[in-house]
């Protein structure tokens, strides 16, 4: 397994980024965590529908998105808000989606990030088609699809991996193994030693990376992890929090101060609060919008149903 930064902040290999670049990514992780905690709080207040926390997975998501070009495609899941945001999807839209508003699924033009897939696994093949189209158009865009360890048990994982290899599409399969699929632990999900080794079977390179991914919270706001895992597991991983680890690296290099972190946190809070206000200020969608977004042009049966003539 490739691991760059140890829990004590020491570095095992040459850093591919400057410390200044890393501080930018660290600030992004802070901002993502701020969003995540705000969302959990809003859910408890009844302001959001069910919420799926990504706490513990910030490094994996921000890092993956940072490796992409601005117009690359991303097809992720309901737990990929940090990844989607870093790839260009505005916080406002992510919040709007979770308040139960389809307009949250409509990122600005030029942002090639699909709204999150809610069913598990079906979206991986989309990144194959997206990348395939870019290859045919002769562009240099790639498509990244993000999914969890549980999704690798879906038949769609196989079809997507196979198609990507057979048609040599520029697709990145980014699995965040966070240890659990709701309650089902990774070691029961598959007897493969690693998830990355599955790539071998399809004839594509696979790499296992220490993304410090562990789902620190529950699957969503509607389940109770105490039923399926020892709380000490969570405590153990909390010590390996990706943010703490990177902060230690900065501290070792004399590149961190409380003031700077407080400044970044304040900036993050301001941005997230702004996004929440904007999303919550969206007017309740009009009834006709539900009909209007079904087809390019409303059909006759829908027109009659909209007009109450059924």
């Amino acid at each position, binding site marked *: 397994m490739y691991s760059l930064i140890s829990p004590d902040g020491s570095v095992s290999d040459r850093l591919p980024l400057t410390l200044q670049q890393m501080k930018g990514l660290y600030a992004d992780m802070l901002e993502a965590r701020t969003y995540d905690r705000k969302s959990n709080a809003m859910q408890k207040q009844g302001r959001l529908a069910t919420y799926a926390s990504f706490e513990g997975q910030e490094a994996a998501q921000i890092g993956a998105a940072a490796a992409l070009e601005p117009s690359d*495609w991303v*097809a992720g899941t309901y737990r990929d808000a940090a990844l989607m945001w870093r790839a260009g999807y505005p916080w406002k839209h992510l919040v709007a989606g979770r308040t139960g508003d*389809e*307009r949250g*699924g*409509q*990122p600005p*033009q030029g942002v090639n990030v*699909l*709204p999150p*897939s809610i*069913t598990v696994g*079906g*979206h991986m*093949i*989309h*990144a*194959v*088609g*997206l*990348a*395939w*189209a*870019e290859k*045919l*158009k002769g562009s240099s865009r790639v*498509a990244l699809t993000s999914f969890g360890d549980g999704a690798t048990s879906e*038949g*769609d994982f196989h*079809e*997507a991996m*196979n*198609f990507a290899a*057979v*048609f040599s599409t520029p697709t990145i399969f980014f699995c965040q193994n966070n240890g659990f699929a709701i309650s089902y632990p990774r070691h029961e999900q598959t007897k493969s030693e690693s998830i990355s080794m599955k790539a071998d079977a399809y004839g594509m390179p696979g790499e296992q990376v220490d993304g410090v991914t562990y789902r620190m919270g529950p699957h969503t706001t509607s389940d109770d992890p105490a039923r399926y895992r020892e709380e000490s597991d969570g405590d153990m991983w909390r010590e390996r929090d990706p943010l703490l680890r990177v902060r230690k690296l900065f501290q070792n290099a004399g590149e961190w101060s409380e003031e700077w972190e407080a400044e970044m946190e304040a900036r993050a809070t301001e941005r997230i609060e702004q996004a929440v206000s904007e999303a919550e200020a969206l007017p309740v969608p009009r009834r006709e*919008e539900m009909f209007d*977004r*079904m*087809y*390019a042009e409303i*059909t*006759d*049966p*829908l027109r*009659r149903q909209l007009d109450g003539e*059924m």
Partner: protein
Amino acid sequence: VTELNIAQALNRALDTALDSDERVLLLGEDIGRTGGVFRITDGLHEKYGPDRVYDTPVAESGIVGAAFGLAIAGMRPVAELQFMGFSYPAYDQIINHVARIRNRSNHRFTAPLVIRIPFGGGIGAAEHHSESAEAIYAHIPGLKVVVASTPHDAKGLLLAAIEDPDPVVFLEPIRLYRAVKEDVPDIYYTTTIGEVRVEREGEDITLISWGAMMKETRAAATMIEQEGGSVEVLDLQTLSPLDADGIVESVSKTGRAIVIHEAPRTGGLGGEVAAIIQERCLFSLLGPVHRITGPDTIFPLKRSEGHYLPSVEQIVKTAMRALEE
């Protein structure tokens, strides 16, 4: 014009689409080198090459899911699934993704793709090869579902489906692929999606059908006319969105209607058509709306096909009884 059967007309439509729009590409199992199990894509792999016409691994969900991604990124993919019974592994992709992306993204992302599915029985095929499950596609919001029963409209509807900005499930009546021939224009033309086709005008009774059962319906109409009845025949062509106005206009005139389909009776589209008629033409009706359908059984194997498929005699008998009402 060239005299073509439905299979040839579909081939010409795909040829025309590949030729006129470089975003169009075909993908499916065995559609390249062998031209597909029904030879609908015959010669296209040779003519347009492996970057336009793709043989794919055996994975229906993968074919539709990849076509979906291709469509979002600007291509116009036409996917072939070999038989309707093999389309079910792709149903998750079709319902949960293809039909929903426009809604999910509030028009930001769209999936203008065509899924071609040969359907229907009467060819003595193996199990799973004779399905008529059009209702499970027509029931899904966000899709359009069309089926042609003539070579002319097979070409026009397929070109319209490829042009359409929304996903279209394009059903092909296997039993009619090579059963009817007619003159088909060589030029590019489209047949409007969402309109019934009045195949024959009449005054006393409306026969409504689509797909392969149009064959029996046509034969029955001729026999009923020989008995003195004036028959109007509607080919629905678009199963979603249904052209309710077209149905209502005809039945308001004739006052009698029979819906004929091969699919199982319960939950079949015949019920929907009958409901539209009773909602909007009740006071024109001279008798009940009749349904002639397949029974609620699994489509049987070869030796029992005759027990399953609605017959010309059944349609004539029902119509003659209705004409007394």
